[in-house]
């Protein structure tokens, strides 16, 4: 029981880090970046190459992977989304799905569909054994990393001028622009941060499930999107809460109900939450002006 809870929290922490990327981009650019999951996959491959082919130590590989994903995120935004800044949200959504398939197919060409065995990069501290429960070092690192990321992001958005600019842009792009805020630069920064986080999520995910294929990112991406919606999209603590709840729910469903049905159960939970509280658990109600 406790074992499932811990592995659920661990998985949920990875979802939470991914969900933070979704939620930030949605909050500021008001778009769903469905390619986010595939940035995770690229992050995984980048770290894999750095670690296995170049033989770099794990911390360097992680930083390398973050740099690659940050650049990728900025490029995706500049090339695919920026030209559509004033287009309908449906056009942007379709583009995001297109970018997602593009990344998957590029990965297929570069790294083929053969699974790569990802070296564990999150086991540099000892595991903890309490009675008959073992908490693996990967689990501990994952949970610590997600907590640090959430605190850092919260501080960033509340205490720095870039963070405040992001919140201003998320509320009223036009007014922010008239106050001298460079909206394009702010959106780029958001994508950079979200993609950098995706790299960390990629490394943590692949360390726990070391089977790297070009579609590695898509399911966790969708789950994390679900988590962001569950917690209230646009809210940083909401993404964290949604991610962990979803991870725990998934692990319990696998353990006590059925491994095959666990995904269905997770999405059913989302539907129920959205029926009861459409804005998500921590989401703010949007009042329509009449």
């Amino acid at each position, binding site marked *: 029981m406790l074992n499932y809870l811990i592995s659920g929290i661990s998985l949920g922490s990875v979802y939470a880090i991914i969900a933070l990327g979704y939620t930030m981009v949605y909050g500021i650019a008001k778009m769903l970046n469905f390619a986010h999951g595939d940035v995770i996959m690229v992050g995984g491959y980048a770290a894999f190459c750095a670690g296995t082919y170049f033989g770099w130590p794990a911390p360097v590989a992680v930083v390398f992977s973050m740099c690659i994903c940050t650049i990728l995120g900025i490029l995706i935004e500049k090339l695919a989304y920026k030209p559509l800044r004033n287009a309908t949200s449906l056009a942007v959504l379709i583009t995001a799905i297109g970018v997602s398939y593009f990344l998957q197919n590029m990965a297929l060409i570069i790294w083929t569909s053969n699974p790569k065995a990802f070296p564990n990069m999150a086991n540099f501290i000892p595991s903890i054994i309490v009675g008959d429960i073992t908490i693996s070092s990967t689990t501990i690192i994952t949970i610590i990393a997600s907590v640090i990321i959430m605190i850092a992001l919260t501080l960033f958005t509340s205490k720095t*001028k870039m963070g*405040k600019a992001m919140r*201003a842009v998320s509320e009223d792009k*036009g007014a922010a622009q*008239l*106050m*001298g805020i460079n909206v394009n630069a702010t959106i780029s920064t958001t994508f950079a941060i979200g993609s950098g986080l995706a790299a960390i999520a990629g490394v943590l995910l692949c360390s726990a499930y070391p089977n790297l294929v070009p579609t590695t990112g898509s399911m966790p991406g969708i789950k994390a999107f679900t988590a962001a919606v569950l917690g209230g999209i646009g809210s940083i603590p909401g993404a964290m809460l949604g991610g962990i709840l979803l991870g725990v729910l998934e692990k319990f469903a696998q353990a006590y109900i059925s491994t095959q049905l666990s995904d269905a159960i997770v999405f059913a939970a989302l539907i129920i939450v959205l029926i009861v509280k459409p804005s998500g658990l921590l989401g703010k109600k949007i009042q329509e002006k009449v």
Partner: protein
Amino acid sequence: MSNNPNETKYVEVPGPGKIPERDKDKRPVLEASHLGIDFGGLTAVDEFNIAIGATEIGGLIGPNGAGKTTVFNLLTKVYQPTRGVIMLDGKDTHGMNTTQANQAGIARTFQNIRLFDKLTVEENVKIGLHNSIGYHLPSAVLRLPGYWKEEKKAHDKALELLDIFDMADLADVKASSLPYGAQRRLEIVRALATNPKVLLLDEPAAGMNPSETEELMNNIRKIRDTFNIAVLLIEHDMKLVMGICENIIVLNFGKIIAKGTPIEIQNNPKVIEAYLGSQGEE
């Protein structure tokens, strides 16, 4: 500077109109010539010519739908003009976007208040200060001394600006929970924080009671005198307009029908007609 606009002396400037005599050695801070915009086949504003002196308080009045806010949107580059030129502090604003226009020295408030509701009063002002806070991402992430120094400077500056309207004690309140009048004042402070040379106020006195309006008039003068900037305001409250505006521009159906001092405007038959309708029509 005189508090009674009717005592202001004027000089003619080359181009459109006249400016207060005290500003004659400085180039008008805002000049629009032959400015116009069409929406589809509809001409919303046409042949808009003004010059605003460096420390002038100007008023833009006219019946509802005359195009006053459209003029503000043109001046702040929310709309790109179909015709004409806008010179801001000697610079042609052609091709600028709203951010660039703001950085070039124009700031505004909104008719329907557009504060950042989820941010506190101080944070709203700091958004205005954004471009004058001088640190970059790395020093913010690593919390280097530069970050603390600049954040402290921004904090002090924000409180100093809020103090103009005696709002410093409200710094930590959420903008959405301020009373209406205070929200209007905060919008002015936020616009001032961007360090403009011209401040555009869109109906600053809307929803204010007479004593609040009186206070606002004093504050607009105080802003002009403290920061040495020009103010152009749209307002329906004639007591305010006649009380502080040195030059009044009257707009009707997108065209300027009269320009002049408060006394000239009050006695201008065209203005009276625009507001009351010509006799015999009724």
